[in-house]
């Protein structure tokens, strides 16, 4: 059951990902990306990361993608205005990406990974567990990321505010 789920989700993920890349209209790209994010969230659920799945949808689909959508619409981008590379370059891009994949896999030498012992704790991805981890071990990164946000916030304001 979960195997088939995995396969279906995977296919969906990959197809939507390709759609992002190939779509002529930026709007379609955005939408395919949203689809892709949902399928990834599905994988999270499969992998016992339920909390993360929710957060993922909220943050990505809900926030980031909206931002993208917003910008695309603001700038009024559509398939007519969409710039395209030469076909040669596109082929080269695909070949390069493919090569990268091959090389990565080759260097990982995807043999069977180390065995793991079942049963795993299935509550690993629950809010409780994740939260505990986040506020104990990962307290410092958590705090520090606030600096990141501050910086990004000020930056966005500085960059985008209309003036003069």
């Amino acid at each position, binding site marked *: 059951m979960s195997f088939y789920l995995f396969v279906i989700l995977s296919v969906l993920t990959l197809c939507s990902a390709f759609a992002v890349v190939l779509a002529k209209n930026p709007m379609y790209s955005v939408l395919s990306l949203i689809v892709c994010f949902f399928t990834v969230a599905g994988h999270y659920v499969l992998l016992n990361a339920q909390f993360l799945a929710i957060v993922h949808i909220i943050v990505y689909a809900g926030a980031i993608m909206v931002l993208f959508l917003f910008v695309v619409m603001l700038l009024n981008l559509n398939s007519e205005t969409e710039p395209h590379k030469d076909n040669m*370059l596109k082929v*080269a*891009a695909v070949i*390069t*990406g493919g090569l*990268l994949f091959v*090389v*990565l896999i*080759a*260097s990982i030498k995807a043999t069977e990974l180390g065995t793991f012992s079942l049963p795993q704790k299935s509550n690993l991805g629950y809010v409780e567990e994740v939260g505990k981890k986040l506020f104990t071990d990962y307290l410092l990164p958590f705090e520090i990321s606030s600096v990141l946000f501050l910086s990004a916030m000020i930056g966005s304001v500085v960059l985008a505010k209309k003036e003069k």
Partner: protein
Amino acid sequence: MNNLLQDTALIFPALLIPLFPLIGFMVNGVFGKYLPKQITGWLASLAILGSFICAAYLFLNMNKGSNINIDMFEWISFAHIQIGFGFLIDPLTLIMLLVITGIGFLIHLYSISYMHEDEGFTRFFTYLNMFVFFMLLLVMGNNYLVMFIGWEGVGLCSYLLIGFWFKNNAYNNAAKKAFIMNRIGDLGFLLGMFFMLFYFGSLNYDVVANEAAKLGINNSLITITTILLFVGASGKSAQIPLYTWLPDAMAGPTPVSALIHAATMVTAGIYMIVRSNVLFALSPITLEVILIVGILTSVMAAIIGLLQNDIKKVLAYSTVSQLGLMFCALGMGAFSSGMFHVVTHAFFKALLFLGSGSVIHALHGEQDIRNMGGLAKYTKVTFYTFFIGSLAISGIFPFAGFFSKDEILAHAFQENIVVWIILTTSSLITAFYMFRLVYLTFFNEFRGTEDVKKHIHESPALMTIPLVVLTILSVIGGFMGLPEGLGFTHAFGNFLSEVTAPSLPYLKQHQHLSHATEIGLMIFAVVAALSMIVWARIKYVKNKELPAADESLTGLNKIISNKFYVDEFYNNIIVKPITVLSDLFLVLIDKLIIDLAVNATAWVVSATGKTLRLLQNGNTGFYVFAMVIGMIVLLLIRVIL
């Protein structure tokens, strides 16, 4: 104790000998321009006179067999080798000292008058004194390196004096040529010294002779050494192949030709070989070489002398020829005979040069004998002295040249009849061209312009006195060496025997010629020479033949007149290739290969930069591409390795 005292009594004057000219040189050189002209000339002359007196004093007071050796200071030292700076005075040196200072003094006197109009008067005497100083150093040194100082020093003075009239670039070229040709010889000398220094550990004459003697006869080491030394000698003494500078050296003032290029410096080569007689005697091969070179030089120069029309050039070739003769003597192991001829030659050749100077003086610089003639009546003293000088050089009894030449010819007769024939021929040619010179210059009518003719005059006393003194010497000089074969004591040979004796055991010993043969040879030589003189008289006085203009010569005459094209030959095989090579090195190797390699490196880097720079095309897409490809490549390195 007594000995010591006597030594100090001798050492002091010995040291004064080179000191006088040195002082003269320095005073004239530094203060000369503040002193009146004449004073500087006299000062220089007196300096030489002082040296002469000291030399004479030594000559009279030195006991036989007690040489004076003065070690002054350690000059160069390294490892176990030490080369000192010191003087040695033995009979050989004494002879040279007397010749140098004596003739030197006369020539100085002569020059006071000869040069009195020249603006470089003081400079001239400065150089002359310097020359004498170096020449004295050459003969007084107690090792080869000190000799070498003098050797190169006289070369320098020769250079300076040949180019004395430095505004004329032809003269300058002659001076440069002299210096450089001498340097070629000097390199040989230097290498010879290296051999001695390396194998014998010293450059002192006695040490070298002793060590060499230990190696025995026919040792290749000694052969090489002596050949190298002979190269040095042939440079200085103008032997084939390094003789071409000497005729050109006539560019200098005539007293210089007399002193340097006839009487003293050019005999340094002979001096050097006599000085190293043991070494040379140990190497028969070298002696053969010297003999052959001497013969060739003697004949060749004599032949060229036949067709020269410049009064000084004739004398110059005659000098070369005579020097060749001296080398023949050395080549036959007759060291003292060679030396003897050096001395007599110094007398009569100096006389001839000074005489020619007097002629030139009278004619205001005219040197071409085709424009002379009939001078006998205008310049009596000059004529007579010159005539006697010519007799002496032609080997007419009883003048000085006769004895010394005869001695050499006698040796040649013993050595090899062919050598004797060639040398006799050469000596007959000498007689011919010398009298060709005399007759063309002094007999018949004056052939120059009227303007010159009006001003012809005998030289002042200051010039004629040296001529007369030298004439006397040319007449009596030969009696120093009356042939032993005829029962006389050979005073000169005896005096020198101390120096030449050590080499005797290694030389071929000939039986003495019988009296009859010897006298026969003498008579033959004199008669033949006289007949040559007569022929010349018939040709030039009676028939009034004149040497043809240079352009009209043909065939052999042209070749001879052009000195066998040796200069041109050297020019083509040495000078021009070097010029070409120089450009080749500079343009091809320096600029094209080496510098290009350097610049090409820079260029390659720069070109790489230019190319790589194009990658930086500002296109982010491309950058990302490049990054990804870079990663793939680097990962591949990892995967593959």
